[in-house]
């Protein structure tokens, strides 16, 4: 009912867990919400009772130190101890998960304002999206290239900061296939707002296919149009920032484009990746995601742009 009124999202919401940890966090939240609401209601009820009109000549209940100590000290202490125990239990479970050894390693490096994603065991470098298999433990090694970012996919897990000076680790296990949205949760500068990514949880099988496809380098047998596009890629200095596996293009400042054609989004989760959007992104990314680090390329002739798009389209 609520969802119909307000059209709530389910893909970036702590309220729609798809992992055991997130489900635990939700149950803990329910406990906390019920506890807090009860405390609130009881206190307000007491306030209302206290404010009731009273005949001062009549003798009646008169709260004193006992009342203050019971309602302010003893009862809260009991409630808070229960809270503390539940909290510690939940924390322990999370840290136990971090000790799992049978894991798939993924490194995520925060940049202003995008995500570099590395599968070290599979020699895959990609960006702004993460593919994972359902039901496996995935260990993320988080770090940052510049300022502090925070890695947060509410449906799956709480957040963990990405620091420039040392690495942090978080292990996740996703139960249900689907596309979930993650977003930077530590203010990281001008375009903090549009620094997001999709996490795609797929079956073991699909994941292996994805791995195989992404381990391939860029194709070398290019059509004429694509070859021209590659030259334009070089001419316009795209390569100084964007690497393409299997070529001499080794730029590190921006996302790796080896498989750009199969990416789901552009601008770190800002817009859908299609021909039209990609074109607009190249020409004037600043109008889509202001203050991102990519300059405008308004002076590329239309024909060259088409060739460039053709080339990028071949990077599957």
């Amino acid at each position, binding site marked *: 009912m609520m969802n119909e009124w307000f059209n709530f*999202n389910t893909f970036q919401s702590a309220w729609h867990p798809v992992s055991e940890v997130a489900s635990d966090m939700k149950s803990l*939240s329910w406990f*906390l919400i019920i506890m807090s609401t009860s405390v609130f209601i009881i206190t307000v009820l007491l306030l209302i009772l206290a404010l009731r009109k009273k005949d001062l000549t009549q003798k009646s209940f008169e709260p004193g130190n006992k009342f203050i100590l019971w309602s302010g000290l003893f009862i809260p202490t009991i409630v808070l101890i229960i809270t503390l125990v539940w909290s510690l239990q939940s924390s322990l479970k999370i840290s136990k998960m971090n000790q799992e050894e049978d894991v798939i390693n993924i490194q995520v490096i925060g940049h202003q304002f995008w995500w570099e994603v590395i599968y070290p065991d599979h020699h895959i470098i990609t960006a702004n999206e993460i593919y994972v298999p359902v039901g496996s433990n995935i260990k993320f090694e988080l770090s940052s290239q*510049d300022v502090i970012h925070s890695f947060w996919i509410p449906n799956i897990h709480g957040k963990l900061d990405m620091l420039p000076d040392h690495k942090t680790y978080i292990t996740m296990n996703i139960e249900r296939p689907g596309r979930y949205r993650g977003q930077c949760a530590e203010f990281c500068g001008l375009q903090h707002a549009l620094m997001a990514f999709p996490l795609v949880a797929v079956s073991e099988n699909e994941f292996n296919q994805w791995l195989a496809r992404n381990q391939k380098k860029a194709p070398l047998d290019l059509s004429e149009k694509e070859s021209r596009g590659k030259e334009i890629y070089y001419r316009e200095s795209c390569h100084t920032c964007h690497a393409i596996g299997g070529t001499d293009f080794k730029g590190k400042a921006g996302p790796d484009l080896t498989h750009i054609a199969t990416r789901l989004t552009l601008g770190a989760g800002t817009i859908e990746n299609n021909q039209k959007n990609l074109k607009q992104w190249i020409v004037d990314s600043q109008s889509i995601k202001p*203050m991102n680090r990519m300059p405008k390329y308004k002076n590329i002739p239309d024909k060259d742009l088409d060739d460039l798009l053709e080339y990028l389209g071949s990077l599957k």
Partner: protein
Amino acid sequence: MIEVNDKKFKTFEKTWSNEEGIRGFFTLVNNQPLGKRFMGTAMVFFALGGILALLMRIQLAVPENNWLSPLTYNQFFTVHGSTMMFLFAVPFIEGLALYILPMIIGSRDVAFPRLSAFSYWLYLFGGTFFFISFFTGDAPDSGWFAYTPLSGPKYSGLGLDFWVLGLALVEISGIGTGIELGVTVLKMRARGMSLNRLPLFAWTILVVSIMIVFAFTVLLMATTLLEMDRMLNTKFFNTDFGGSSLLWQHLFWFFGHPEVYIMFLPATGIISSIVATFARRPIKGYTYVALAIVITGFVSFGLWVHHMFATGLPELANAFFTGASLIIAVASGIQVFAWIATIWGRNPAFRVPFLYFIGFLVNFVAGGVTGVMVAVVPFDLQVHDTFFIVAHFHYVLIGGVLFPVFGGLAYWLPKITGKMMNERIGKLSFWLTFAGFNITFFPMHFMGFLGMPRRIYTYPNELGLGELNMLSTIGAFILGSGSLVFFYDVIKSLKCGAPAGNNPWGARSLEWSLSSPPPIYSFLTPPHYQEKDGEFDETHRPQGIVSEVLTAAPTTWRATPVTHALTAEVEAIQWLPGPTWLPFLSAVVLLITFLGMLLKLYLLSAFSFFIFVGLIIQWLWPSMSPKIQQEALALEEITGVTLRPSGTKSTVWWGMLGLIIVLTMGMGSLFFSYFYLWLYSDMWPQGNLSVPDQKLFLGASALLVLSAPLMFWIKREIQTRKSRHIFIAALLNFIMVSLALIIYTWDVLKLPFDPTLNAYTSVFYSIYWLIMGFVVVDLGICLSVMSRIGTDKKIEFPGFLLHSQIANMFASFLGLVAIASWIVLYLAPQII
């Protein structure tokens, strides 16, 4: 009443009055006008911060809005947060305390009137300095928390310099006011107001003043380190050179968490005053409430890590800080139920201040329970840095601080202006504020759960949070109109409010025994606090000799009694300064010093800083005319109470204690940084350096350590008036300290590395520089003691003994710092 003849009364009143006209505007030092200025200025900043909030709410009303650029939005939330924290809440509370506290505890003024003036000017200059950045287009944009490295030289511009330097002035102002209010509560209370009878508002101010001294100093030090990174290229927070990204967060939140209680505790003090008055009886469970206030202040320093649960700290650390966070909830609970017990069945009148109490209680309890929720680590990992947190802390800060502030204004404004506010308009403003506040912030709890992070200028449509955000924006405008109506009510009351009379609420605390508005000296006769049923009893007030003699007296200079910190027995009569240019001028040259730093005109900075030091010396110079000294001696004779207090009887002694805490915390923050950096380094010293040769440092430090007992001996000789050799001893002491400074300087000049090499060398040099700074201060103190011995020995205002005690305190402190620094810098790396 004690009869006062007209002529005596006139001269007395003239002594307490400000100078005429524009001159008086800059030279006045009385607590009442300064308190009003603090509050007025804070309200202006509140309005500015509020306008920024509304602009942000417009931007967020609909998804994918690009009305504000990301830069502008980031600047807005940075300035909004910083303004509300640093320029509104704390200064307003300081102003209210400055105004009303002396009346509540029965003093004619605060302990250090010139310091209040100095603090006010610094606050005004710092706040203006900070806001000027908007006009140069360089408003800070790294958030009020200014996390490094984003706030470091590599990722942010001039805006951060405005932020650091502007706020540094405000921080110094805060520390000044903190020391001042703390000493005022401890030493300026009316005779008979022993600590166990202290009104709860004064309790909160006492605790908060101590917290300010501890917390603000750490912030001041942290911002200094940040500015050094930005300006001098040191490497504290530079992760490429061994600096740490999280050191800033530890220092910042060590300040930042207590900061919340620095705002909140006085708000509970306001509430306790209102509740006692409207329930027509003292607060129930007074002892528990006072205890809860002290515990809250204490425990709030053990909570800072709960702002950092998502930074990947060890499990055990997180568990500890969860536990501590829950303890503080209990302390707040006790206060809440004490208020409920107090009003139970008392049929309180639902006037505007009382309505704000009810609004406060409801909203604050809501903010309190969400506070318990976010202290739970796994829960926090989800809602941290989301709109849930935005909702939580606005419930605490608006519900828990702004409601009491408005309630307190409605309650005390009749005392301040002598005019009543309009009840109907007041009620309208309350309901607008209450409804608007809840409509704005309650939906944010849900938004946080549903994936809305903080500090984002826009959000995608698919997030599905457009409706809730729109609701929130509508609420914000209702909330804003509530404040507007409140301001209108205040201004209207000034023009055509009904006369308030002395005691419009039927309250029974001391300030209501005065006329409204009160005379500038507050009490013609220093009161003798006597209580009946736990409250000041006006009907029965024998005065005692000091009150009698000080009625409308002394006539040509300002004075007020000083009492024992615990028992409130009269211990001394305190001379208080009259109008002076010194505070204003000192603040101006300090402002120029900071401006010079901002504009990189370092010569100008150095020059104006020297003038500043000169002005401070002038300020501290004992300056009593012989005529006053004679009157003072006469007074001493009649009352049998000293006018030359020393030791714990003197406010100056307590002020010095405050200063030493400040300096200790300053050095302590550096020590903490040192060990923190060490903890996260592969090797220490970093970068294959070795610890420099310690001989010279050890030698100089030994001199400082020896200087402490020597100064102690001098003090004792002065006390017992035995020796004639103190001049030689003082000279020897001076030579020792000078020698120490020379050796330190020599050593620091030939250190084998630069301060900018890595984080180790940066912190090494900083500790070294700070201790040298202390030695320079000590040198000044030694010099002053020497010159004092050389000149007058007979009449001693303020007492020479006190002077030597101050010197002794500082020398002991310096000796300890010298030992500690040697251990930290030289010994620790060798043995660990």
